């Protein structure tokens, strides 16, 4: 059994949402636990507002958790400070969704990629050669060295953002919807590149996306989130072929399939309504109000994540 690189336990994040005498909290992430093993890609899927992005940020200590702990290579990062924190920042990094806002418009590509090295006080002998090599790594070349972000397309900008991270030789990267701002023909280029880089450098990914096709293509294991909770974790193939949680089933039945024949015959399990607000989540199982199989216990007690098959965890009273 490989060692987990990231170990998350009972992680919570509540955001204040006003209230005068009694504080109101948005329970964005509400007690989740999982491991990410070295060299694997863990996919994190869910609909908007389910807490995927918040989870990604918590793991990198970009925001402080309300409760719970995150171990990175055995160290609790919620307690890291000073030099140790800086070292962690070198090893773990993030690619954002929007390549139009994550690059400084006033800096050349060369400066953008050199900046993290300066921050970390890393000296390279031949900066130009070093950056050029990185650009080749992400499918760009030396003619792009002294250009500015506005001269690039969305896909190329995302490549620059990835080159900037590679400059630090990280171990772990959170990919927060890295391709959802891109067109499908370009999306495939970036996904393949990310897979190649992972193989070459032994990277570990947390891949956050709402696109189930993309997540299946990228991930070894997938965690499904609903309203701040993880409802199911399983190897990618298992999750798609044998989903257990009613929400996962509904989610999979809702994706439009690019095959007209399969689309006509596929089972229609449709959930009604929309996800409730994370301010006052329903008691018990959070999916119960929309769940076709909900029983009394589902509305009273919260189900715990339980291993029902080898490596297949689900939080549901049906199992």
């Amino acid at each position, binding site marked *: 059994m490989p060692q987990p690189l990231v170990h998350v336990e009972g992680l919570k994040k509540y955001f204040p949402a006003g209230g005068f005498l009694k504080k109101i909290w948005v329970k964005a992430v509400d007690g989740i636990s999982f491991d990410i093993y070295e060299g694997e890609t863990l996919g994190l899927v869910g609909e908007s507002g389910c807490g995927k992005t918040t989870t990604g940020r918590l793991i990198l200590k970009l925001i402080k958790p309300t409760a719970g702990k995150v171990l990175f290579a055995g160290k609790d990062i919620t307690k890291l400070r000073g030099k140790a924190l800086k070292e962690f920042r070198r090893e773990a990094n993030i690619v954002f969704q929007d390549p139009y806002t994550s690059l400084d418009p006033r800096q050349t590509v060369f400066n953008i990629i050199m900046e993290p090295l300066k921050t970390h006080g890393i000296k390279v002998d031949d900066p130009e050669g070093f950056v050029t090599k990185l650009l080749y790594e992400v499918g760009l070349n030396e003619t792009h060295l002294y250009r500015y972000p506005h001269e690039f397309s969305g896909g190329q900008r995302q490549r620059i953002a990835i080159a900037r991270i590679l400059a630090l030789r990280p171990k772990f990267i959170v990919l927060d919807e890295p391709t959802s701002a891109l067109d499908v*023909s370009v999306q*495939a280029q970036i996904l393949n590149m990310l897979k190649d880089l992972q193989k070459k450098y032994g990277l570990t990914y947390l891949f956050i996306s709402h696109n189930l096709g993309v997540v299946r293509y990228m991930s070894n294991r997938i965690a499904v989130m609903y309203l701040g909770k993880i409802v199911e974790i399983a190897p990618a193939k298992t999750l798609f072929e044998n989903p257990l949680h009613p929400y996962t089933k509904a989610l999979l039945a809702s994706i439009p*399939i*690019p*095959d007209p024949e399969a689309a006509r015959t596929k089972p229609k399990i449709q959930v009604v309504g929309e996800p409730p607000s994370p301010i006052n989540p329903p008691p018990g199982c959070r999916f119960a109000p929309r769940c076709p199989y909900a029983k009394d216990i589902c509305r009273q007690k919260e189900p715990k994540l339980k291993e029902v098959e080898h490596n297949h965890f689900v939080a549901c009273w049906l199992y």
Partner: protein
Amino acid sequence: MSGPQFREPIIEVKDLYVYFYTYAGVVKAIEDMSFTIYKGEKFCMVGETGCGKSVTSRALANIVPSPGRIVKGKVIYYRDGKPVNMVELSEDQLREIRGKEIAYIVQDPSSALDPLYTIGYQIVETMIDHNTVKDWKEGYKRAVELLREVLMPDPEKRIKNYPHELSGGQRQRAVISIGLSNMPRLLIADEPTSSLDVTVQAQLLELLRKLVKEHGLTLFLITHDMGVVAEMCDRVAVLYAGNIVELAPVDEIFKNPKHPYTMGLLRAVPNPQADIEKLEPIPGTIPNLIYPPPGCRFHPRCPFARDVCKREKPPLIEISPGHYVRCWLHAQ
């Protein structure tokens, strides 16, 4: 469900050119576009950002936003069998058709609704404008029925709500009921579900399918999602850089794609139902339409490009009944 059943045309686009006159230069958004939508069918237009799909849909109702202009071409609308050219109609005549006979659902429901009026008011307003109800009281009754039809929860209460009080899915339901309020003959839906979550998207697509069937509407759906195309359409037009590159019945497009761009697009989309070892991306990016590539606009990215592709623009030709392709590979 393909071509032959739907023989009575409702819209015929002939040789349409739409240009945008910007400071940076003239953007040739649509060139040499011709297609027909038949009565009662679900016609889809698919393509990537900037390929001209939204502009096409706007040209159908003659609402191309400034600085865009229809430079050339005709949009024939068969109004009770009598053809009228939408491009030449006066503003008054267009107002009679838009919102009543041709309705439009946009991608972003929050910008389509006026934040200062209740959604009930906005639904009734459309009907009052077109004299389909006799007064506001009758209008409100009809609005509740419409909201119930689009499966809005608690329609009696919702008509008194302002747009900000509704969720994204509920707002889109409100926009759909405005579109349906005058029982249009043609419903144009421009990415109606792209800003919504998949479980909500599935509910709305199901609803659109039901409405088209029950009311005998004609649907013109615009999307970038091949999955939505497969689930919703009878016929599909694939757009690339302002040109239709392929047009065929939906099964034909997925099983027997002929244009290299369509083939590439299908291989580049990760299918959630299959284990895929390696995706095959299309190299390069979409061209700048101020200076589009000469010849076939896809040739810089095409693995089969030959000399003729760089020089001359291929025509859209019918290679089998109902299957049109714009490619030199199939032109001889």
